[in-house]
């Protein structure tokens, strides 16, 4: 067992893990942050995407011990402390960018990562950036719309109401 410490959603946390403990297991089982989901075992579906030191990472494809000392952001850290949804989260609701909600945390985290890198992505760039996030419900149409709308809002542009 190894003792690890990291910041998760701005809060210092620590725990004892095995070498084989995955970051997603640490988040879900040790910290009770069950918003990060597991949808596959081959690193493709992206339901487990979180940010590690500011970049999107698949939490099911990273060892918890490897995140020792890191700053981790999960879906639970995306809304304001008073519960106000972030711009991206609000856009997903506004544009019906989710149905069953299972892939949604990973989608939001990947979208946030994209918009950190590229404030003005094209539709094609949004679609390409979601290559590692599978949604089975929405057909992606409204997810893409939501991300484009969130980008526009973050740039300070007015977005037509739906």
């Amino acid at each position: 067992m190894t003792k690890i410490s990291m910041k998760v959603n701005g809060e210092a946390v620590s725990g004892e893990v095995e070498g084989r403990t995955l970051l997603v297991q640490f988040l879900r089982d040790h910290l009770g942050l069950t918003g990060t989901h597991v949808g596959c075992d081959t690193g493709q579906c992206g339901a487990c995407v979180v940010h590690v030191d500011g970049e999107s990472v698949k939490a099911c494809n990273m060892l918890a011990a490897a995140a020792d000392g890191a700053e981790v952001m999960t879906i639970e850290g995306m809304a304001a402390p008073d519960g106000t949804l972030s711009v991206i989260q609000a856009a997903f609701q506004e544009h019906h960018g989710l149905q069953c909600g299972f892939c949604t945390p990973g989608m939001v985290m990947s979208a946030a990562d994209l918009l950190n890198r590229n404030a003005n992505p094209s539709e094609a760039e949004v679609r390409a950036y979601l290559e590692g996030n599978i949604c089975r419900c929405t057909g992606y149409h409204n997810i893409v719309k939501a991300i484009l709308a969130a980008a526009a809002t973050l740039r300070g542009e007015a977005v037509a109401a739906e």
Partner: protein
Amino acid sequence: MPKDSGIGASIKRREDVRFLTGAGNYTDDINVAGQTYAYFLRSTVAHGKIVSVDTAAASKMPGVLRIFTGADFEAVGGLPCGWQITSRNGEVMKEPRHPILASGKVRHVGDPIAAVVAKSLAEARDAAEAIGVEIEELPAVVDMRAAISGAAPAVHDEAPDNLCYDWGFVEENREAVDAAIKSAHHVTTLELTNNRLVANPMEPRVAIGDFNRASGDSTLYTTSQNPHVIRLLMGAFVLGIPEHKLRVIAPDVGGGFGTKIFHYAEEAFCTFAAKALNKPVKWTADRSEAFITDAHGRDHVTKIELALDKDGKFLAIRTATLANMGAYLSTFAPSVPTWLHGTLMAGTYTTPLIYCNVKAVFTNTVPVDAYRGAGRPEATFQLERVIDKAAREMGIDPVEIRRRNFIPADAFPYQTPVAVAYDTGDYHATMDKLVEIADFAGFEARRAESAKRGKLRGLGLSSYIEACGIAPSNLVGQLGARAGLYESATVRVNAAGGIVVMTGSHSHGQGHETTFPQVIAEMFGCPEANVEIVHGDTGRGPMGMGTYGSRSIAVGGAAMVRAAEKIIAKAKRIASHLMEAAVEDVEFANGVFSVAGTDKKVDFGSVALAAYVPHNYPLESIEPGLEETAFYDPSNFTYPAGAYAAEVEVDPETGAVTLLAFSAADDFGNVINPMIVTGQVHGGIAQGIGQALLESAVYDANGQLLTGSYMDYAMPRADDLPMYAVDHSCQTPCTHNPLGVKGCGEAGAIGSPPALVNAVLDALNAGGIGVEHIDMPLSPSRVWAAIQSAK
């Protein structure tokens, strides 16, 4: 001006807030104090005799509580099948036992041989690897034609020819159909495969069994579309637990698409083991396990013949289908290729004579059952493909040939030759809308532009019909259904006016928590925020049948309306007392009861309060309280229909197909929440595109699944798909349910695959490459191979 409340308003979903903040409560998020973990040791061979299972050493490994084998389940029932089909010769289908853990034989890769329960999942898995299993491998049968050839090994001794049933429909039409085809001006024949799919909801299945020794109550948390059905099937047929001692909870469920309808062995196992060990037992599938245990979908091989007169009018249709059942009969498997398939073979057309033959076949593969559309996509695919082929053969425009055969708008209600009667529809209207939104007029210019870039552009269409909300129960009972197909709702108005609706419909992405309150808000004249929806818990609502077959609003919503009507009727009586007026003079509108021609009025909240604080109240004639339950059993299906178009570009050098545009014109009758309906269509379309271009579950000859992960099973991703043009402004309301609604959940998956395939074939043929058919998925390698063989 769009509405912002009630029926027809695109209200934003209230459930989104929890899903967007990580506060959803999916089954795997639930941890019961003291829980233990189950791991299933599964067969790695497709067919074999279990010679021995030695658990002695494994049982002594760290953390192991107990190892279960098939012998532990011999005294309980097998997994039941919910539909019995009768063959043409009058015999009932073969229905082999489906044990919870394999007994005697394993019949597909993934068949569970033993289950370890341990203190941790890792310990359970370690112990499972230490179990000594000796299996005498037997030859496997995978291909359906081989399976029924008489020379194949038998999956079950009870079905030596691997035939589950041989169904003919409509048997009385057979000779007339044969004669019509024999004498027709033109007959178009097509042999095709409807590819096997894996539903792949993003949340893998999970089950947690819990047992309370003090009360004797069992609780099962499970990823189900219909917890009441699981309670009934598992309680009554498998474990013998009466319903009052068994609670089934399906909390937030991460997508279903049919594969979470069925009762699975792991649910029964966890419930059984929790009682045996007096400890909670949790099982979470990983995706690899899901691929070899979740029921698959589709998997038909069909020959269809369409007879036409010289004007392209359809005279008769004859089909012969082999339908894969897999190794065991999943819960509703037998109904899919029969009553959910044969009854749809008229499509949107006036074809007078139809005969379908379906042979259901056992193979050493994962069981096959309903997947989004279930039988109806298979029907639509055959029909819309053979019509396109006939149009090409006869030199008739594909839109025109369909128009010549549409059931005219003034012919409704329309009795088809395949048992069902359509209540309403206007297929010319949806086709008109499609031609407009897909810009058929501008297509040739776009085709020419593609040609300049060396690409072959194609436009394909389809016209589909669906039958949703399968019913009525007494009729489907005659057809072999072993379940009722009603839905229930309890509407509870609390003393302070807040309303709770307990519905048997389950929401796993459909947004019921938002849409159902819209109906109540419309009826009661209250804000949606006053209404709460309770679902997914057998302990908190009346017996329900759950969500599948696009039935929630048409059946579950109708039950809620009936219960709400009872509430209004009772409330009127209370109001009449409060206003000292005759009940027949009381009117109710916008949340206020009034007496016609007077200024007397009382609001809904005051009536609710009076019902619970019955001081000024006619207790001798009206019971206190304001809570009503209704069970609604529809008199007919609903029949949404529409027309779809796909526009593609084919790269003739590589065979790669790029989907450029997809358009859908649907008729769903009245629409409660247009935003959500559009989203349902989007999702269905993406799954249909997935079937047409990407997805396929492939077994090798030994019964090994070659597409057992997302490394080989191609899921549609964002960059595979375009934005969709979706329109549901054509509305012919359903005449037999109180909301005038039709189902919308499966339409997209039904109408889209043939449109895609027709588009690719249009691209190739217009480009001078004569290809009559390519089986789905139209992967680059298949399209390239077809191009090569046409050269």
